[in-house]
C-alpha cells in the first residue's frame, strides 16, 4: 500500500518513544513481613502456607511442609496455640481475623490422615546431642537437630513423652491420639527417646559422648502459697491434680470445688473439676477479669460450662466445707489491696493454681550456669554459662506457652548446630512489617470468619471429648482464602492490568516485572496493589 506521507502511520510505532524518561519515582516489587508471621512464636511463615493451602487439595501437602519447616506439631498447634497470629492479623481490622489456627489444624490432621512424613536430607554430622525433657521444647529441638543431621537422644523423667502437653493440658483440649501421633512422627526420624530417665550429672553426659545438650525440663512444680487452714481442710495444687488425671488417679474433689488463681491452669483445673462431677466450680481471683492472665477463649469456654468467677477475692482461711473470702480492691497501681470485708464460700476442696516453678536441679552446680528468680539465665543464643549446654522452654525467662517452647526448640537447634560447627548462627534480617495501611482492601470481598463448631456446653461438662471441632475441607479452604497475603504478591494481575502505559510485563501467574523503558512512574500499580507488595521508590539520581 503506497501510504500517504505522515498522514498514515504504521501501527505500534510509538514503542520507539521511551516514556520511562518521565519517571521521578519507580515502582518496585517487595516482600514485606506479614503481621501473622511476625507474631508467631514458632516463627512460622503463615502467609506462605496459607498461599499454598488456598490453592486447594493439590497444594495441601506443600502447605503442611511449609509449616513443618518451623513447627513439627501442626495438629497440636491447631488445638492448643493461643494464636498471637490471629491477634495480629490485618484482616481483623476489615471484618474478622483469618482463622489461621483452624487451617493449621486442618492441615495437621490431614497430614496424620495421609501419613505424610518428613525426610532427613542432611548428611549425618556424627555429632550427638542430648535433649533433657521430652516436652514441646525438647521435641522441637530434637526434630530440628535431626533434620540438621545430628544424632539426638531425649531423656525424660516421665513415663510418657509430651511434658506439659500431656500432663498440663487436659484431653478435652488435646486428644492424646493427636499428641502421640505427632510425637511418634518425630521419633520415626531416628530420635532416641529414653523415658523415666532422670539426668543427674549433665557434665558426665557431655563427657560420655554427647557433644552438646539442650535442657528443657519445663516448670511443673505447683507453687504453694501459705493459706491459714484448719486441719481438715482439703487443699491440693492444680499441677498435681492435672498430672494425676493423666496417670489415671482421679482425685477426690467433692461436689463444690474452689480454684484459686487466674491463669490458664486455673481454668483447666476448674473445667476438669466440672467434668469430674463437681456441680459447682468457682474460680477465686484477686484481680479483675481484665487482668486475668488466662486467655479469653479459655475464660469464655469456662463460663459457657457454668464455671463461676469470684473477682477481687482472696482466700483468707480454709476450713472443712467452707472458705473465708476477703474482698479486695485495686489501688491506683492496679495492685489488689485488702478491704477487710469478708464472706464465706462453701467448698469441699480448694485447688491452688498460683503458677508453677521449674525443677532446676539438673543444672545446679554446673560451673558457669546462673539462675535468677527460679529460672536459668541464658544468652540470646539460649546457651547457659556452661559452653555446650543450652536451655529453653518454661525453665528460661519467657512467656510460658507451648508455642513459645516450640520456638525455643527451633532457635536452640539452630544455635547448637552452629556451635557444633564452630560458628555462630545469625538470623536473617527481618523485612519491613506489612501494616494495614499499605493494603487496598476494596479488592477483598467481605467474608466473615467461619466459627469452629463447638461441643454444646451440656455435653462438654460430662465428658472429656474434644471441645473444639475442626473445619471441613471447604470451610478450611474458605478460611485460607480469606488471607489478604499482606506484603506479598498473590498474583491478582492488578498491577499488570491497571498500568495505563502497559509497562508491567507478566512473566507467569504471580510473576511480574516493571518495564522501566515505558513506566512513567504514576504509581497506579502501587496504589491498586491489594496487598501492598509494590513500593514507590525515588529514581536514583
Amino acid at each position, binding site marked *: *500500500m*503506497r501510504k*500517504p*506521507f*505522515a*498522514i*498514515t*502511520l*504504521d*501501527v505500534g510505532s510509538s514503542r520507539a518513544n521511551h516514556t520511562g524518561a518521565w519517571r521521578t519515582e519507580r515502582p518496585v516489587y517487595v516482600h514485606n513481613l506479614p503481621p501473622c508471621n511476625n507474631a508467631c512464636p514458632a516463627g512460622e511463615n503463615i502467609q506462605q502456607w496459607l498461599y499454598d493451602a488456598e490453592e486447594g487439595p493439590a497444594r495441601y501437602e506443600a502447605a503442611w511442609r511449609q509449616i513443618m519447616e518451623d513447627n513439627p506439631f501442626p495438629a497440636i498447634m491447631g488445638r492448643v496455640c493461643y494464636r498471637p497470629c490471629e491477634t495480629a492479623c490485618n484482616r481483623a481490622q476489615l471484618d474478622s481475623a483469618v482463622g489461621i489456627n483452624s487451617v493449621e489444624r486442618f492441615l495437621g490432621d490431614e497430614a496424620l490422615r495421609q501419613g505424610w512424613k518428613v525426610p532427613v536430607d542432611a548428611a549425618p554430622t556424627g555429632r550427638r546431642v542430648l535433649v533433657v525433657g521430652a516436652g514441646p521444647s525438647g521435641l522441637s529441638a530434637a526434630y530440628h537437630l535431626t533434620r540438621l543431621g545430628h544424632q539426638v537422644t531425649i531423656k525424660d523423667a516421665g513415663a510418657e513423652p509430651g511434658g506439659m502437653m500431656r500432663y498440663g493440658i487436659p484431653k478435652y483440649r488435646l486428644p492424646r491420639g493427636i499428641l502421640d501421633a505427632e510425637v511418634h512422627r518425630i521419633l520415626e526420624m531416628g530420635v532416641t527417646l529414653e523415658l523415666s530417665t532422670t539426668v543427674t550429672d549433665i557434665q558426665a553426659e557431655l563427657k560420655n559422648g554427647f557433644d552438646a545438650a539442650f535442657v528443657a525440663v519445663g516448670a511443673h512444680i505447683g507453687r504453694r502459697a501459705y493459706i491459714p487452714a484448719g486441719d481438715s481442710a482439703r487443699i491440693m495444687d492444680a499441677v498435681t491434680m492435672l498430672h494425676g488425671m493423666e496417670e489415671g488417679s482421679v482425685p477426690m474433689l467433692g461436689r463444690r470445688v474452689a480454684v484459686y488463681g487466674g491463669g490458664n491452669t486455673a481454668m483447666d483445673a476448674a473445667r476438669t473439676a466440672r467434668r469430674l462431677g463437681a456441680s459447682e466450680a468457682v474460680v477465686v481471683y484477686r484481680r479483675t477479669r481484665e487482668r486475668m492472665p488466662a486467655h479469653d477463649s479459655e475464660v469464655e469456654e469456662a463460663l459457657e460450662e457454668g464455671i463461676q468467677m469470684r473477682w477481687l477475692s482472696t482466700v483468707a482461711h480454709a476450713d472443712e466445707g467452707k472458705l473465708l473470702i476477703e474482698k479486695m480492691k485495686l489501688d491506683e497501681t492496679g495492685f489488689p489491696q485488702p478491704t477487710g470485708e469478708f464472706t464465706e464460700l462453701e467448698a469441699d476442696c480448694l485447688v491452688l493454681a498460683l503458677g508453677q516453678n521449674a525443677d532446676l536441679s539438673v543444672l545446679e552446680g554446673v560451673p558457669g550456669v546462673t539462675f535468677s528468680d527460679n529460672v536459668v539465665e541464658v544468652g540470646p543464643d539460649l546457651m547457659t554459662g556452661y559452653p555446650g549446654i543450652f536451655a529453653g522452654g518454661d525453665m528460661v525467662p519467657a512467656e510460658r506457652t507451648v508455642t513459645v517452647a516450640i520456638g525455643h526448640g527451633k532457635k536452640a537447634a539452630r544455635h547448637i548446630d552452629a556451635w557444633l560447627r564452630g560458628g555462630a548462627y545469625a538470623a536473617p534480617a527481618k523485612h519491613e512489617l506489612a501494616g494495614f495501611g499499605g493494603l487496598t482492601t476494596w479488592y477483598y470481598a467481605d467474608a466473615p470468619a467461619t466459627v469452629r463448631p463447638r461441643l454444646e456446653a451440656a455435653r462438654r461438662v460430662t465428658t472429656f471429648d474434644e471441645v473444639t471441632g475442626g473445619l471441613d475441607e471447604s470451610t478450611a479452604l474458605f478460611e485460607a482464602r480469606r488471607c489478604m497475603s499482606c506484603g506479598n504478591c498473590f498474583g491478582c494481575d492488578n498491577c499488570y492490568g491497571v498500568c495505563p502505559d502497559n509497562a508491567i510485563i507478566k512473566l507467569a501467574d504471580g510473576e511480574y516485572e516493571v518495564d522501566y523503558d515505558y513506566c512513567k512512574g504514576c504509581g497506579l500499580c502501587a496504589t491498586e496493589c491489594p496487598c501492598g507488595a509494590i513500593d514507590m521508590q525515588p529514581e536514583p539520581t
Partner: protein
Amino acid sequence: MLKQTEGSRAVAEAVAMCRPQVICAYPITPQTHIVEALSAMVKTGDLEAEFLNVESEFAAMSVAIGASAAGARAYTATASQGLLFMSEAVYNAAGLGLPIVMTVANRAIGAPINIWNDHSDSMSQRDAGWLQLFAETNQEALDLHIQAFRIAEELSIPVMVCMDGFLLTHASERVDIPDPGQVDAFLPRYDPRQVLDPDDPVSIGAMVGPEAFTEVRYLAYERMRQSLGVIEAAAAGFAEQFGRDSGGLVRPYRTEDAEIIVVALGSVLGTVKDTVDELRAGGRKIGVLGITTFRPFPADAVREALGGARHVVVLERALAPGSGGIVTSDVRTALVGRSTHISTVIAGLGGRAVTRKSLCALLQAEDLQPLTFLDLDTGLVDRELARMRTARRSGPSPENMLRDLGITASGIG
C-alpha cells in the same frame, strides 16, 4: 442513448453507472433532485449501494470520509449553505486524500438568503484541496461525473463537480446517456492508496507537527500539479471511449484571432458563445475561453489559450468583497508579464439572468472598467446609499430595495 431529460436526472444516472457503494444525502435546493433519483434507484434495487439519509451536510461528508477510508466508492451532493456547513469535513477529506466525488449544484450564499444560482459556494472552497470541475451543459455535467471518479481515485484526491443550480439541474435538455458497459470499461475498480483493514492495520489521520506539516502540504501541491495531466488524460480517454469531447482543462471558442477573449465558467458559456457569434457577425474579433478545470488552475493552458488577446474580460458569477473577481486573480497570475488588459465583470449573482442583450452591449463598449457589475440597477443602489448616509438605522437594504421595486422576492429567473 439520446434522451430529453432534466439535468439532475441525467447526473443521477451517470453517478449510478459509476457504481458508488455509499451515498449520503441531506436535502438542500437545488441539489435535491439528484439524490432523490439515486435514492429511488437504490430502493428499486437498480443500484446496489448503501444510501444514508444523514442529519446534516457535515455528517454527509463525514460519512463519505468514513466510507472512502474503509475502501468504498463514496458520493454525495450539496449546495450553498450546505457546502459551507460541511466545509470542515471538505478540507479534511482532501487532507486525508480520500477520493470522494461530490456534486455542487451552485447556488448563492446568504444573507440575504437566496436559493438561486451563482458560484459563491464552490468558490469559497476553492482552496480546500479538492479538484473543481465546472460543467457547461447537462451533457458535460453527466460526463464530468464519470471522469471525476476516475481522476479522484487515480490521484487519491476528492473531486467537486460544479453545475449551475436550476440553470442546469432543473433544465430539461438533450443528453447522450452512455450504456453501463462503456462506463465500466472507462472506470476501473476502486483501488485505494490506503484502507482501513484489520488484517493490515494502519493509523490514518495522525497529528503532524511543524517538523513535517510543510512537507505534507508541499506534496499536496505537487499532486495537484500532477493532476492537470491526469485530467487531460481522462478527457482524452473519455473521448476515445465515448466519442465525445468533455472535461479537460479549458475550452476555447473562436479565440484564434481574437483581440477580446471572454473567460467564464459553467452554463453561462452557452449564452456567451451566442453573443460571440453575434458580435463576430458584426465584425468584432472576439472569442471565449471556458474554464472547465478551475482547481487546480490550469495557468499554462490559460496563458496559451489567451494567446494574443489584447483584452481579457473575466465574467464571474461570484464576488470577493473587498477584492473583486476571484477567477480574475488567477487569470492575472497566469498572464503575468504580459501587457494584456484585464477587466472583471460580475454577473448573474443570486440568479440574476445573464442575457445576450446585456452581454452584447457590454462587450461592444470600448471603455470597459476594471470592475463592472452587469445590469446593476444603479438608481436603486444610489437611493439605498443615500438612505444609509442620512439615517443610521436605515433598515435592512434588501427589504428597502424590494420596496423600491414594488415587488416581493421571486420574479423572472
